């Protein structure tokens, strides 16, 4: 009797059901690959933290057994010769790679409408988006196909879809988890992050993938990620409420859910204080300079010369580049490459990139000041709206970018942050965000677990 085999067959059935429902959340999986994973896991000792757990992997994290496309035509069929460090760590802990999940092309987007392989549907309402860019992973966890999934964040690409889909999404401190094998978008921002149905599962997954890696020079040898049992109360915890995250025009349903969550925090003994993070409004503009600048360089390697799809072209090597990159990349990726190239160009470098870096330092300084003043955690809504309708923002890139207004700042500051369900508005999930000081994931997860337990009946009642 193969324990893992039975799990693998069950996962295959659920993935098939998700595909039948046309969620379009998976890009690659097979019963054969799952069976191979089950056989591998059965040969391992059964004491792995994630023994027999099926985990979905965002398709910008490289795997040897399934293709890695980044949701782009330019990498269609690409098979990596190595596994990402996070995949190696999951597998060593007994987890099975369940599938690769759909995403905005190269993780650039907030709705998973920008995949070359079609948009991902919101599991509850097919007319809506699941958020992005890790929409496929979020949708699969929300649909119950897998208990946990890996996503990636550059500017909120896990927290925002977690919020839209009603699941838990955790971004670690920058450097806490190795980026080796995560296809780079904005290297100074990119973090492998996790989705799960519960805070506890998300914490376990994060604990497995965290830790320094000699193959990533930006990974940090910080104190080990220590999960803490959720306490009986939040007594002694000071939670900062940054006023910039509660604008007057915030969606009333979201404001109400946040108010309820804050009431529970007080009930649990937490001290809530209003704080100010005055440079918050600089985050989206700074992000949309820094991330595209890094992306323009990171995506230069996709030129058709060595791997991936090469467009037929006559003429010199420049014509080959133009044809391959012009046809291989979608509109949003091309837009960001152009923006990134522009902001680094001679004569504009200081005006754009230089000022964006200065803004980034100020945003980081805001957080540092709040934490230095005695705040343990910050609480905010994760998103200004619930899941929006497909097509609603595709014609207006700036409106799309503003969907990340509450998640971008922590990304720019490299801080751990998470979204967890705090209620619903008109049936659609609402996420609350906790932001913690560097490497304080343990404190953040414990508080979230305590709140999760206190809020769950409320969320269910609505």
């Amino acid at each position: 009797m193969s324990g893992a085999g039975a799990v693998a067959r069950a996962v295959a059935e659920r993935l098939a059901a998700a595909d039948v429902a046309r969620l379009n959340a998976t890009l690659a999986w097979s019963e054969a690959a799952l069976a191979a994973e089950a056989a591998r896991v059965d040969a391992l000792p059964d004491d792995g933290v994630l023994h027999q757990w099926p985990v979905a992997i965002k398709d910008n994290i490289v795997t040897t057994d399934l293709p890695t496309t980044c949701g782009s035509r330019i990498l269609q069929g690409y098979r990596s010769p190595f596994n990402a460090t996070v995949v190696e760590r999951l597998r060593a802990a007994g987890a099975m790679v369940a599938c690769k999940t759909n995403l905005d092309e190269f993780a650039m987007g907030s709705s998973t409408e920008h995949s070359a392989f079609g948009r991902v549907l919101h599991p509850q309402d097919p007319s809506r988006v699941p958020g992005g860019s890790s929409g496929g992973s979020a949708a699969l966890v929300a649909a119950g196909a897998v208990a946990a999934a890996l996503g990636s964040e550059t500017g909120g690409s896990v927290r925002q879809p977690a919020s839209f889909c009603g699941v838990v999404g955790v971004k670690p401190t920058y450097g806490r988890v190795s980026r080796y094998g995560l296809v780079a978008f904005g290297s100074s921002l990119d973090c492998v992050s996790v989705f799960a149905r519960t805070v506890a599962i998300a914490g376990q997954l994060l604990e497995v993938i965290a830790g320094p890696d000699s193959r990533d020079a930006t990974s940090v040898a910080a104190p080990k990620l220590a999960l803490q049992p959720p306490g009986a109360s939040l007594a002694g915890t000071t939670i900062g409420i940054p006023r910039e995250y509660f604008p007057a025009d915030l969606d009333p349903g979201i404001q109400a859910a946040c108010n309820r969550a804050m009431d529970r925090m007080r009930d649990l003994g937490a001290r809530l204080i209003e704080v100010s993070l005055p440079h918050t409004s600089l985050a989206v503009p700074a992000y949309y300079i820094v991330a595209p600048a890094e992306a323009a360089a990171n995506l230069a390697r996709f030129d058709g010369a060595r791997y991936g799809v090469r467009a037929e072209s006559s003429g010199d090597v420049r014509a080959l580049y133009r044809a391959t990159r012009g046809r291989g990349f979608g509109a949003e990726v091309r837009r960001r490459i152009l923006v990134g190239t522009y902001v680094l160009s001679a004569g504009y470098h200081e005006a754009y990139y230089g000022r964006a870096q200065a803004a980034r330092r100020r945003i980081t300084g805001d957080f540092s000041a709040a934490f230095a003043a005695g705040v343990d955690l910050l609480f905010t809504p994760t998103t200004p709206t619930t899941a929006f309708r497909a097509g609603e923002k595709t014609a207006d890139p700036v409106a799309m970018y503003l969907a990340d207004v509450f998640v971008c700042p922590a990304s720019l500051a490299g801080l751990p942050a998470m979204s967890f369900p705090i209620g619903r508005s008109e049936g659609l999930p609402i996420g609350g965000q906790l932001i913690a000081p560097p490497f304080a994931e343990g404190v953040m997860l414990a508080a979230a677990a305590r709140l999760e337990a206190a809020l769950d009946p409320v969320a269910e009642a609505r």
Partner: protein
Amino acid sequence: MSWETVIGLEVHVQLDTRSKMFCGCSTGFGNPPNTNVCPVCLGLPGALPVPNAGAVRLGVRAALALECTVQPRSIFARKNYFYPDLPKGYQISQYDRPLASGGRLEIESSDRGTVPVSIVRLHLEEDAGKLLHDRIPGKTAIDLNRAGTPLAEIVSGPDLRSPAEAREYLNALKQILRYAGVSECNMEQGSLRVDGNISLRRKGESALGTRTEIKNLNSFANVERALSAERDRQEALLARGETVEQVTLLFHPGSGQVRPMRSKEESHDYRYFDDPDLPPLLLAPATIAAIGEELPELPAAKRSRLRDGYGLSAYDAGVLAAERSTADYFEAVCAAGAEPKAAANWVINETGAVPPAGVLAELIGLVEDGTLSHQAARRIYPELAGGGSPRDAAERLGLLQVRDTDALAAWVDAVIAGHPAEAARYRAGELKLMAFFTGQVMKQSRGQADPRRVQPMLARRLEDG
């Protein structure tokens, strides 16, 4: 009109590490194409660079040898451009915060004597791959074995005043980097590459003229040729009252001419920015000092010590100090008891495989004490490359000098008897024939006769005759 030539050089040297700058691949030369590669140096999706501490160490060593200030914090940056030999679409280099700056290197100029040349900066970077145009007919192939090889770029100030000085600078640079164990500086294998910047100005002016840059310089001799050609071209332009345009030129070794690159090839905006994959390169003062301790005695110090310590001429000291291994060998021969001037002559003049230092010292001693003639010693020398006793070799070859009077007398008498006409001319006053007779005796004795004893005996017997 009298013009002054102003030259500065940018030199790329390969740091002599076994593995590449940002991955563990071999830097070996001459392997089949695309065999020394991995996800990192191929720029595969998801791969990340990790700095090679050995390359950083060699970079610091080079910087210290060139008397640069090593920065405690330097930054790797991305230099963005598209080219098929550049797998990531950017080169990891250093830009506004290089590893080191503000050094100097002294050169010997035939026009100006000892001249200090300033080293503006030294930075670390990775090499690109290589395009192969002759492997597949009608197509270009890419070999990425070299991609990611660690390089130091060393930029001189505009302190050189002639193409000959530029060549002298390159010789001095190569010498010091080889001494420091930083680089082999082998131009054929691409471990040293040079770009030249040159401008002209009226003698006595301090402002620099418009410069041009020359690329594709594949030997020190061609650096000098190309700079001379470009100096002549600029001088002709200025003499006609025209101006020099700031362009990049390619040297064509066949014709000896420099010609502008197509403008497309040079119109780059590299859009440098700090590489987010690589944290700042931090070097504690103690680390820098420890690397400084690794530096051996450098060429200039070695030259003066050989000259003063062993009483050698400046020329001999310079020749011996040209290669660290040569100087080390010379000193070992002296340490084994050889007289320094004789040791210097042997080490400088003899070519081919050298004997162990102690053996050469013994050989020199045998000449000094008259056991062997210099001529005989030179015949024995090649026999000693693998070691062994010079005395045994001399005996085996029958080259020990014969000082026995009877034996010498027999050779002398035979030679005089065999050349009655020359003997008569000698006796008639043609004394320079002594050299002829001496040679004949040495020949007769197959080199064994001690010429210092042969000559008095010859003189006596010829006069007696």
